[in-house]
Every structure is written in C-alpha cells, then in structure tokens.
C-alpha cells in the first residue's frame, strides 16, 4: 500500500511539473561525456535553428534531410550524407553552416554565431555522438527514466538467473578440459567465442604471492613460500587457501575492503575535524566480523540497525551497537546555526542514503534528492521515503567538549554499567564549571578567614552552599583549626577538579529519535520548500511486498531486512553487488567494472551469467564471504598467468574477457606492510586506538598543533585515518578517500609517489632496518655480498635475482662503499646496503603484483 501511496505522490509531482523528462540514453556504448556535449551544445541548437525545416516530427523534410533523429543525418538528404563523423571538413552540414560556399548556406535566414559553429565542428570532430533513438522526439519523450515500474527491465533489478552449469559447453573448450568448475566454464565459453584461449597457469611462486597478497595483504615470507612449494600433494593450493582464510590476517585485509565502503575514519573532517576517539572499536569489529565470517546479510543488518536488534548478552548487544557505528562515522557539518538544524538533519540523511545506496545496492540514490533520478528508476518520492527513515535516526548529540557544549558524534557506554559510567563522566564535565567556582570560593574563604572578616564569611556561607565547613564558621575555634578545615576542603575540591574520571568504554552508536516521522518531498531539494509527504519506505523498483514500519520506530530495522531480503526485497541486487566486489578485489576488475554503480549510467556486466552464479552461490552458502572468496581463488581463472600475448591483446586489449590475470600495483597498505615484514619490524597483532594521544580536534587549529603519528609498527589497517590529514603514504598512493564510500580506489601515477619512495623517512627507516637484518642474517665469510643480495631478493621479491642483476647490484654496492661517508666501515657498509634495499623496494619487481 505504501508504495502505492508513493507512486501517487510521484504522479502528483509529474503533474505539477517537477519531473524532468530526460530520456534514457539508448546507445549504451556511447561516451556519456560526449553525449553531455551533445545535450548541452548540439540538441538545443538543432532544435532552435534547424528543426523548423528539417524534422520528421513536424513533417518538414526540406531537401530530404531531417535532423531530429540520428538516422536522419546518417541517411542524409538529397545532396548526400550530412555528417561524416570525425571529419568536419567533409561534412555537408558543417560546410553549410560555415557560410563559405555561396550555394549552400544554412540556416538560410542568418548564419549561426561563431561559437555555435565551433560547437558543431567540435561535435562532428569527436565523432558526432548522438543518443537519439531512431524514432522521432515525440515518441522518445514518453519514456521517463525514473519510472520505477518500467525500470524493472534494467538488468540489475531482475531476479537472479541460475544457468545450470552443465549447460555451459565444456566438452569443446580450448584448451581441452581447462575448466575446474563453473566459474571457469563461464570464462572460457566467452574466451573461446572470441577466438581466445586463456593464459597458461601462473608459476607456483607467483600464484602463492598473489594468493597471500589478495587474502591476507602480505606477500609470503621465504619460509612460507618454501613450505608451499615443498608440499607436493595434489591439494596443496587448497590447503594454502584454507590456511590463509583461517588466518587472523584475513580480516585485516578483507575488513579493510569493507572499511573503504564504510568511509571509515578516526575524525569527522568537514568543518570541525573532531576526533572520533572511539572509531577504532568499529574498525576492529569489522576486522573481527570478516575473520569469523559473519554472514554478510547479518553483517549488513548490524551495520544499518545493530542498535535495534534483539540481544541475549551484553557482549552481543555491544557488538551489534558498535557495528551500527557505520551510520555515525560519516563526515558531518557540525557547527551550524540553530535555525539550520533541519538542514543538518537532511544533509546527514542524504549522506547516509548515498552511502547505503552505493555500498549495498550500487545505486546513486542521492541523485534523486532534488529531482527524479535522470537515468535510474528512482523517483524523488523514493528518496524521501528513505530520508524519512534516516532523518528519524540520530547520529549526533550534544556533549561537553573543549569546555563547551558541542554537537558531536553520538556515543553510548558499552560493557556492564556502560550507561551509568558514561553518564557519570558526562556529568563531571557538565558540573566542572560549578566545581571550579566552588574551589575559587573556598580559596576566597581562606583569605577572608585570615583577614578576620567574619561578616564576609557569613555572607559567603549564606550565598553558597557547601563552601564553608561548620568548623571554619565557628569563631570560637582556633584560627589554625578553622584554616585547616577549609584547607582540607580546598584539597578535596581540587582533587575532584583535577581528576576527571577516565573516559569510560564507549562506542559510536546511533539511535532512533523520540518521534520518528515521515518526511515531505523537498522541492528542488530545498529544506524549506516542502512538497507532498511520503510514507517511509524503500526503493519501489526493488520492493515486491509490504514492509510495515511500526509507528514508533524509524524503520531502520525494516530497511536492514529489506536490503538483504531475497523474497520481495533488494537481496538479489545486494548479493550481485557484493559478489561483484569480491570478484573486483580478487581479480582486479569487477564483472561490472563500475562497482558502485549498477544503474543505467554504470557498465553492464561482462559476464552476466557468472555474476548471477556468484551472487546465487553467496546467498546459498548462507552469505559466507569466505566461501565465495575460496571458490573464486581456487578457480583456474584466478590462477592464470598475467603474461602478455600479442594476439589476445589485439582482440581484447582491456582484458575484459580475462584471457590473462590482471597485473596490479600494490595498494599502500600492502606496500608498507610488505616492506616492514621484509625488514623484520612488522607487528602482526591487532591494535586498539592509534589516535588516543590526539586532542579533541584531530587537526591543528590555532594553538593546537598536535598531529597524528604514523610511526607505529602495526599493520597499516590500524594507522590513523584522519580526514583531511591522511598518513602521507595513504594520501599519495590512492588510499580510499574516507569522505565518501569507495568501492574502487582510484589508481593514479603522480610525481609525489616517486618522491615518497625516494625520500620519505619511513622508506629510509625500512631500508635501514632490512640492511641491519641482512648483516645479522648472512655471515661475513667469503662471498657474503652475493649471498646478501640473494637473501635481500628472497625477502623483498620472493625470488632470486637474475645473474646480470646480481652482478649489477654488487657493482653498485662496491661503488657506494667508496663514495658514502661514515665513521666506520661497518656504518658505511650498512648505508650502502640500505640504499640498495631501498632501490629494490622502489622497483617494479616489488611493487607490481603479477
């Protein structure tokens, strides 16, 4: 019923004219930017200056030419083809508008302005992109992209389709019997169809390195590699995979993938970069959840509504609450006028809609805040149905901070008596001003006492309770006694003042607001322009049954259930999106490469049946991430070599069909952790807070010059993620931007990366450490230098150096030993090896995963 009400609201909006009738861009292969160019510069021009004489719709087809369809100019008029895409000079249309040919001048009344001609030339030069259907404009106008019923035809909203794997031809595959299982059969079917064959299997060394890095974020140590290589049994790879999946390092790698989506950070960012002192609990719990293989649907429910879920123990309650920190951890504008509170609430709801929409469903729902979605079947009414739920959720609260009442992230005490302890802590800070005043008054009383001002004392006592002890007031007592009594009181007061209670265990936890309520559509997204009210609910295009939301609750619990509900909810899409993410991380590219956008502006899957197969497998395994990872990495597809092949490259240069493994560059976490592991200084254990030494402002303002540290020996997943002040390594090497949910990190190559590798102190420290380790590990007998180079290579790149490379490294060592300065030869030698070690860390052998 509710979705029906929303549809009505949607229809009303159409009637009052707020809906933009953008057409579905039909040509899926076309370049969206180029189409934007067409829409901005060309279509309006054609419509205003050309259609009156050249339009199928109006019936005016002068010279046989129509320009209101793509077919029209492709077919051309009586004089021939009007436009030659890519060649302005050869295009009749361009010749006509240039007015250079006296026999052909268009428009006939008046030449176009120079800018318009330039736009047309440019458009033709870039290939004359034209999204218009081969129909006239009138018919095209009927389609509304945001219609949630027609929108179900889009592939991503369809139920999962299971192709029985035996139906996928395997008998005729080339090379024969290549497939190990369903995944491989989907891959090779497409390869063979394109006349391609898969690359040979990767070397066991390379496969091991790939497996270690993808599963636990670290390359194998020489011992681990040797163990694997010496296991000659058939199921050696499976045993290795199972060991890695069971390792606590798995969560440190795969938890981080989720943290990218959760826009995890240790500070707020935006206007007031308050420290999120308790964020680490969320981080560590995510890591734990991936280690314990918490079913993904449960994990998602906990992220969205953990604070509302039933529990049996305090530990379970806290675990669920901490997980719901997902909602609290986003960046928020904190310091606002009181009048702007509604704006703030809607902005926060927007941030949450954007995050949940992209992270869980691969949908750009946020686009529907100001108008119906221009490309996807998401009307504004759906946006505000969700906004009602999330605006009924509280993620901020007022607390005492920096001796002021501040609006900040919502916290809740955890553990037994968590609430009482948190309340006591907060009370202290609320009362601190009064305690301070009392201490000052006691100090004043001592002055009065010593000055013999009995009247003053009595007045003080009358005006303020608890400042004077009865002894001090009693003028019959000795002065020394009276002073001592007040001094004791002063001491006690100061003790309270100067000993704030320690911060109790707390976590970032959302809550439903007191009176959850529906929201009105906001016209043009403006908070102060309410339109029709919309009942709380979800995306209509993915809703096939009723999800009643109880009066007194936000609807978050129902939202969480709907997201993963495979019977009438969004579960199939959620499974597709997540299965694609797993594939993306393991293979280097998603089956849908736009991992956060499964809408019409995203890409279509390269292997739709495979995607559905993986998504179904995820659901059937009880949403087990580890099972899905396991079946992908045990495929033959995963084990392919990354070697280049000219023939395959000429057919499929982007490796869309996976004729080989994608070669990849290390992410910054692996890069750093692998360096520290090789130098023998990495701490593998889990770490709690790495920001507890910071003040309440996480970045320097005025007198506060405290800055986050990065010199911890821990794994990179535990390093501080301060918004607007990321560790330099992260900043430079394309770490996920913690300001917004990130499913695919950008991959850039900028000069600052080279500068970091060549000069950063952390690089030098790791190089020094591995040089020291080398001096200890290799005994200085004859041929020590060769053995050192060999050992260095084993530690850093997991293979021996080629002979000529060994010779070259030795030669460089020799030269450095004569050219470097130092007190002793030992010191010089150490420096020389450090310089060479750094060179190996800088090399592609280390940084590129094959």
């Amino acid at each position, binding site marked *: 019923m509710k979705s029906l009400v929303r549809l009505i609201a949607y229809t009303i909006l159409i009637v009052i004219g707020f809906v933009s009738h953008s057409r579905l861009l039909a*040509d899926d292969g076309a370049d969206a930017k180029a189409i934007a160019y067409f829409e901005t510069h060309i279509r309006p021009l054609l419509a205003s200056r050309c259609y009156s004489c050249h339009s199928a719709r109006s019936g005016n087809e002068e010279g046989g030419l129509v320009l209101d369809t793509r077919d029209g100019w492709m077919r051309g008029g009586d004089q021939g083809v009007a436009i030659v895409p890519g060649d302005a000079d050869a295009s009749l249309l361009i010749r006509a508008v240039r007015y250079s040919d006296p026999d052909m001048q268009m428009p006939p009344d008046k030449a176009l302005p120079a800018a318009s001609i330039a736009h047309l030339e440019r458009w033709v030069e870039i290939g004359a992109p034209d999204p218009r259907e081969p129909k006239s404009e009138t018919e095209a106008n009927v389609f509304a992209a945001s219609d949630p019923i027609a929108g179900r035809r889009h592939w991503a909203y369809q139920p999962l389709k299971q192709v029985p794997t035996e139906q996928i031809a395997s008998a005729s595959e080339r090379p024969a019997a290549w497939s190990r299982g369903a995944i491989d059969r989907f891959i090779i079917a497409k390869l063979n169809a394109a006349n391609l064959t898969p690359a040979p299997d990767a070397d066991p060394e390379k496969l091991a390195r790939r497996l270690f890095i993808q599963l636990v974020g670290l390359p194998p140590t020489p011992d681990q590699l040797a163990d694997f290589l010496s296991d000659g049994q058939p199921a050696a790879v499976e045993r290795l995979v199972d060991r890695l999946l069971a390792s606590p390092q798995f969560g440190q790698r795969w938890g981080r993938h989720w943290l990218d989506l959760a826009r995890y950070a240790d500070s707020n960012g935006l206007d007031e970069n308050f420290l999120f002192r308790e964020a680490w609990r969320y981080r560590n719990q995510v890591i734990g959840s991936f280690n314990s293989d918490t079913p993904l649907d449960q994990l998602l429910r906990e992220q969205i509504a953990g604070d509302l879920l039933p529990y049996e123990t305090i530990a379970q309650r806290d675990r669920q609450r901490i997980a719901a920190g997902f909602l609290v951890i986003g960046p928020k504008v904190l310091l606002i006028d009181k009048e702007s509170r509604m704006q703030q609430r809607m902005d926060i709801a927007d941030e949450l809609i954007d995050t949940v929409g992209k992270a869980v469903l691969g949908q750009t729902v946020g686009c529907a805040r100001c108008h119906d979605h221009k490309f996807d079947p998401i009307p504004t009414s759906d946006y505000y149905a969700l906004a009602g739920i999330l605006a009924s959720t509280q993620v901020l609260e007022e607390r005492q901070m920096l001796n002021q009442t501040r609006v900040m992230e919502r916290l809740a005490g955890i553990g037994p008596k968590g609430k009482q302890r948190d309340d006591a802590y907060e009370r202290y800070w609320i009362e601190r001003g009064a305690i301070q005043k009392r201490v000052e008054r006691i100090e004043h009383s001592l002055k009065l006492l010593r000055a013999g001002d009995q009247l003053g004392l009595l007045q003080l006592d009358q005006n303020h309770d608890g400042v004077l002890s009865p002894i001090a007031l009693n003028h019959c007592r000795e002065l020394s006694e009276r002073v001592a009594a007040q001094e004791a009181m002063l001491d006690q007061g100061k003790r309270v003042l100067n000993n704030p209670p320690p911060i109790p265990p707390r976590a970032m936890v959302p809550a439903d607001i007191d009176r959850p309520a529906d929201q009105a559509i906001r016209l043009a997204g403006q908070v102060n322009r309410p339109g029709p009210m919309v009942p709380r609910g979800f995306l209509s295009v993915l809703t096939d049954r009723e999800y009643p939301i109880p009066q007194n609750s936000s609807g978050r619990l129902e939202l969480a259930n709907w997201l993963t509900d495979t019977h009438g909810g969004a579960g199939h899409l959620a499974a597709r999106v997540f299965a694609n993410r797993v594939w993306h991380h393991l293979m280097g590219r998603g089956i849908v490469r736009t991992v956060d956008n499964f809408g019409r502006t995203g890409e279509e899957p390269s292997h739709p049946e495979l995607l559905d197969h993986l998504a179904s497998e995820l659901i059937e395994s009880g949403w087990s991430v580890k099972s899905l990872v396991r079946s992908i990495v045990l495929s033959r597809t995963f084990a392919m070599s990354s070697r280049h092949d000219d023939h395959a490259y000429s057919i499929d240069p982007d490796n869309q069909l996976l004729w080989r493994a994608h070669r990849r560059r290390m992410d910054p976490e692996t890069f750093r952790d692998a360096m520290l592991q090789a130098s023998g200084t990495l701490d593998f254990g889990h770490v709690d807070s790495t920001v507890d030494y910071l003040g309440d402002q996480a970045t320097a303002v005025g007198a506060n010059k405290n800055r986050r540290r990065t010199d911890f020996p821990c794994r990179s997943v535990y390093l501080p993620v301060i918004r607007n002040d990321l560790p330099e390594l992260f900043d430079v090497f394309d770490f996920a931007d913690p300001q917004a949910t990130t499913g695919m990190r950008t991959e850039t190559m900028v000069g600052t990366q080279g500068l970091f590798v060549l000069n950063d102190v952390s690089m030098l420290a790791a190089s020094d450490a591995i040089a020291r380790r080398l001096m200890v590990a290799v005994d200085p007998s004859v041929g020590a230098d060769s053995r050192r180079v060999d050992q260095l290579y084993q530690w850093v790149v997991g293979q021996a150096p080629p002979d000529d490379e060994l010779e070259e490294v030795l030669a460089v060592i020799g030269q450095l030993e004569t050219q470097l300065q130092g007190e002793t030869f030992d010191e010089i030698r150490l420096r020389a090896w450090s310089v060479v070690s750094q060179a190996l860390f800088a090399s592609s052998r280390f940084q590129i995963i094959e």
Partner: protein
Amino acid sequence: MSRCHQFTPVTSRRDLLRTSACGFGQIALAGMAGQTLLATDHGLTTDPVIPVRAKRVIFLFMWGGPSHIDFFDPKPRLNELSGQSLNASSVGRSSSEGGDRDLGTLMGSPFTFSQHGESGIWMNELFPQLSKHADKMCVIRSLHTEGSAHGEALLRLHTGQANLVRPSVGAWVSYGLGSENENLPAFITISPPRGHGGAQNYGSAFLPAVHQGTAIGSAETPIRQAKISNLTNPSLSLDLQRKQLDLVQSINARHLQEVGQDRRLEGLIENYELAYRMQSTIPAIMDLSDETLETLNLYGVDAEPTDNFARQCLLARKFAEQGVRYIQVSTDYTWDHHKQVKEGSIKEAAKVDRPIAGLLEDLQRRGLLEDTLVVWGAEFGRTPTMENGDGRNHHPQAFTMWMAGGGCKPGLTYGATDEFGHSPVENPVHMHDLHATLLYMLGLDHEHLTYRHAGRDFRLTDVYGNVVHDILT
C-alpha cells in the same frame, strides 16, 4: 555507457606519456583508473566566446575574517549610532523574519577612512602601502555567503559547498587549464590551514589526484621552515641518489623486458624520472637568494612584522612566473577578532600591507599583472555590532573582497551594503557568483566545466552562480 569507466587501450609508450605535459607528474595512464585527466580531453571547457582575461590566480587568504566595515566599507551612520542597539527591522527584515529581534549594540569603526588614487577607493589608514595601488584595485563590497562558523565558511569559499566533499577552486582551475610547466603542479597552496576543512580546502575530491593543491608547509609553520614534503632526501646527495635511481631503473627495465609489455610498469619508470626532475627544479624556485635586495625590500623580506607574509607573497610571484595556474597564500588563523578588533586589525594589517603592495608592484614591473588575477579576501566579514566590548563576531551576510590585475576593472568599487554594513543592498555577489566570475576571467564557463562522477556531472558552482559581468575588463 559512461566513458569514465571505459578502459581506453594504451598501445605505446608514446601514448602513455602523451599528456604528461598536462601536469605535475601525471602520467597518461588514460584508462588505468578510468579517469579523465583534463577537461579539454572532452572539449567541454574552452569556450571560444569567452576571452581569456587572466592566465593564473593568486588568492591572498586572510584566515579568520577581517572586518569589512573597518577596512574597505566605511559607514558614517554606524559611527553616529555607535552604542545604540540594532534592530533587525533596520537591516531589512520583516517582522515575520524576526524583524523585532535585537541584533546587538552597534559599534562604530575606530579607524579613519579616506579616498585613494584617482579612482577614490575608500580605505582605512592601516594599508598605507597598498593604498598607493588603489587604482589597480576592484573592490567588491557586496560579497555574501553562508556559514557563520569558520569551518563551513572556509569550505564554501574554497570548494563552493560545505556539507559534501567537492573539489576546490584551484583543483577545478587545474582541471580546466592544466599546468603550463610540466615539472610543477598547476595548483600550489602556500601555508594552508590545517583546520576548518584543512586539506579539503585544496583537495581534488573526485577530480583526478593530479589536480589537488600541492601544499608548502601549513599555516602555523613559518614559511622559512616550510617545505614540500619528500622533495629532498635527508641522507643522500643528488649524485648518489641518481646512482640509486639508475639501479632502480635498470631493475625495472629488466623486469619490463621479462614481461614484454605493461603500461603500469612503463608508467612507473617514467614516474621516477619525473620525481627526480621535480626535486631538482622546485628547490631552485623556492630559493629566494637569487632575488635582488631591492625586490626583497619591496616585499618586506627580513623585516618585521612583514617577513613571513613577504616570503609567501614573493614565492607566489615566483610560482606565477613559472606557470603555476592557481596559487593560494594564507595567513595564520589571526584575523578572528572577537575581542579588540582595533588592536587586532592594526597588528594583522601591518603584517600584510607591504608584502601585498610589493606583490602588486613586482607583478606589474614584470608584466605579469595584466594576466594574473590577484584576489584578496576571507571566509566572511564581521558584524557591525559589538562582541565582548571591543570585538566583532562572524558575519557571512556581507563582506568585502578585492581583486587586481588580469580580468577585473581597475579602480572600481562594486556593490554596496546598507548603512551598517550588515546586508548587501546593491549588486549582491554570492560566493557562487565569485567562483563563476573567477573561472570566467580564466576563459572557463562555470556551467560547462563539469566532471562526471557517480553517474552525473558536477561543477564548482553546483546549480548556482552568475558571472558578474560588470567588473570584467
């Protein structure tokens, strides 16, 4: 369908390096992350109808918010009524908008204003050097924005928005124009604030990382100690580092030979060469020892209280000369005069007056002023009412900024506020309008300079912004 996610094949090393000239070490791994590097890749920005009035911008940012009514926008009536309370109805609010509200006690300006130059630009007595350049200045008295706290206002000034993370103005300019110098970034920010949005104020958000501002030091660090991070090796001479780099490249080349072809690997090789070139050239630019004593004096280098800001301004000129597109110079967080607005203004003006005048003079002498736009301003102005007895509070409703050089009409005073300096009453210029105008002066149309992200096109001015044609040359 979206090009942003299409993986354009890069078939040769030449292709690979094709656009490395477009900026600071950006290797053209065109399809690698599916990113568009420069706006011109799509032919969407350079609009033949907009003349290029300025090739670069130097933005002098006065962090904290100088008081417009004490510097550039004299209010005799405010002085007359000083000490009386200001009713909201007097600044144009109807009763339904809280017109009865008492906005506080009016406080006149302690400074004396006079007109300068042939154009008669009004300024107080705290800018004796700058006022000599009055005829170069275009003063806009009707700026207004949102955000009555620093953080929100800074983000709006630098990125156009506060509640969402958006690319900064400099990043958009870099994206729109690219760099004129392949060894330098297109966007440099000298002593940027760490707080109030911090790095977000010079970030690239969803634009490719190459467009992010390169920071030199930070606001709280004296510029003498500031540096670009990792530009020098603390323990290795350039010669020995070259030897080390030769070894790296030799290993890489051998690796490349083994694998046959790999654009990432090729990119890595070129990347190191670029880094090496950068660390050889940038320190030379940052070194002021090749400047004449006369130039140093012109800015106030080695004199107090001007030394710090003088060095920042001189660096800005050097970068402008080298083809950097957008240079921001920031003061420390010292313009926030909630108390003692008189003393504070005197103190802060003395730090920047000579350096700014020196910058204008120097740019002119070198023929750079005609295509360099200098902008002076802050996140907001200050209230005509008193705070803490002798201070003024934040005031985003109306404030003054001024420009000089390429693109703006010299000697013009534009826009006006009411008799208290509380609200714009003539030709209001919103922050979005300022941004649109700034881009326009650079030959960019703010409605066309867009970037496709998360399924839609974004621009600096969102859906707002009007070019202020009246102030253009």
